[in-house]
């Protein structure tokens, strides 16, 4: 009897928590499949026509810009992190420990604490209002994590493989390209996915650096729409298309999470647990 009550109570608490996490998604999920929805939730007028509309006009431009930022971010952060991780993993040098410490320490600078100087610096470097500028800022913030993870990965590869190549007359650069790089594949894929998601989902960097509408990524597009929706008055937003683009927007991070969460748990979580 007591056990039955306990099972019931546990289930009840868990269901309430599940509802808390589910309820805010209701509007988004239902509106994406409705014709001309408003801000309240209704279950009628089912349609799939909102999704093709995402890939036309302004919203297509948003998707393209987000994709560009995400790809450039991933490319820069993967290639630069990999190159820099090699000397960190294989050699001892004087400023290695302080450098690693600085890298890790810098990870705790919140982007929101350096928004204004980032804007001012980007303007100084003529990178304000460019997608490359946005990608550079996001990629730079991924590099400490990237170097750290790749360094651990390279350390776990036996040195003997490289030494055998040296005996055969290969120089250090071709050893890195032909032997270390392919063996780092899985680690680099994780870094690439995480950087891609960081560039894809970024809002703050875009908000401070991008001013022309043709450079808007998805995050800025839906933010500007929210400003219109929360102000009093007439809006021209098509909520159906907006909800549809929100759903499209969260597919890449969800897929990336499926592939990387084992590494995430292993790397970051256990690191924090074991400390």
């Amino acid at each position, binding site marked *: 009897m007591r*056990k039955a009550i*306990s099972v019931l109570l*546990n289930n009840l608490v*868990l269901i309430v*928590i599940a509802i*808390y*996490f*589910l*309820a*805010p*998604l209701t*509007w*988004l999920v239902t509106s994406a499949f409705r014709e001309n929805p408003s*801000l*309240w*939730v209704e279950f009628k007028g089912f349609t799939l026509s909102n999704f093709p509309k995402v890939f036309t006009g302004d919203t297509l431009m948003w998707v393209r810009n987000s994709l560009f930022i995400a790809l450039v971010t991933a490319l820069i952060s993967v290639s630069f992190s990999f*190159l*820099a991780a090699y000397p*960190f993993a*294989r*050699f001892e*040098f004087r400023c290695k420990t302080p450098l690693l410490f*600085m890298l890790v320490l810098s990870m705790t*600078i*919140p982007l*929101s*604490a*350096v*928004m*204004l*100087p980032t*804007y*001012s*610096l980007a303007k*100084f*470097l003529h990178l304000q209002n460019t997608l490359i500028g946005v990608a*550079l800022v996001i990629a*730079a913030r991924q590099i400490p994590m990237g*170097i750290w993870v790749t360094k651990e990965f390279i350390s776990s590869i036996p040195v003997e493989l490289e030494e055998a190549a*040296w005996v055969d007359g290969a*120089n*250090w650069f071709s050893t*890195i390209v032909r032997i270390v790089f392919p063996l780092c594949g899985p680690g680099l894929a994780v870094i690439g996915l995480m950087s891609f998601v960081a560039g894809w*989902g970024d809002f703050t960097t875009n908000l*401070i650096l991008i001013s022309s509408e043709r450079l808007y990524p*998805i*995050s800025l597009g*839906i933010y500007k729409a*929210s400003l219109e929706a*929360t102000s009093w008055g007439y809006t021209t937003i098509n909520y159906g298309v907006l*909800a549809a683009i*929100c759903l499209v*927007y*969260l597919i890449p991070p*969800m897929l990336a*999470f499926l592939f990387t969460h084992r590494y995430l*748990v292993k790397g970051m979580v256990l690191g*924090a*647990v074991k*400390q």
Partner: protein
Amino acid sequence: MKRKSKGVFALLIPALIIWFIFMLGPALWGIYVSFTNEALTGPAAAHPRFVGLQNYKRLFRDPLFYGSVYRSFIFVAGSAIIGQAGLGLLLAALTSQRRRLWPKIRFAGRLATTLAWLAWVVPETVIGWCWISFLDYDGVLNEFLRFLGFKPVYWLVHYGMLSIILANIWWGTGWSVMLFKAALESIPREIEEAAEVDGAAGWKKFRYITLPLLRGPVMVNLILITIWTYGVFGLPLMLTGGGPGHRTELMTIYAYKLGFKYFEIGYGTTVSIGILLISLLLTLGYYKLLGRRG
């Protein structure tokens, strides 16, 4: 250890340059900007003038700055410490697969943890839309209240702080659940079994055996999510924009508004330096804690 070539250190250069310019750079550049009167437009945008300590003097006399420090503190206390850590620990402990109840609560347990993780990966602007629609006057929450016979509420206007705290808990809890679940699984089974032999069970076992063993991970997580939550900006900006009035104006939002609404990049950056100093203190506390324990 082996054939060493000086050339190999050239590999460090691209990453370190990018990192130095775009990650450390803004923090260092900010120190310079905080001593100028740089503006977003006008002559002071093109040629900022050095103004000495003027911005810092103003900072110490600025009631809106002190107000924003207080509001950031409330936001972090409610959203990170009570919300994410508390709810995360509850969810992780309830869904531990070592519980004897687990087979009977498996469905609800898996559903709740999966949804928490899902929320953690949603981009913040989408979370903004989820919560704008959820808390709207005609939104799901008010529909539910009407169904129960209560009056609907203008959540974002009358309960702004509560709204952004709830939204941020929704976003961040997945991380804490992940961390606490891993921590719970790292506790040796023998310890729990020994406690059971001695007659401890349920809440007692959790309170006197499991929780003390979790102290380390809990502390680490608290500091991590404190630093992260302190830096949260986009979600509250989207939900309330700091309003109504200044009632949800966190430090990050205040700095942003100073720069991009009132065009005072110089003074806004001074506020940013304040944010930076507080997060540096939090970080140093974190390292000190790690150092003492490891």
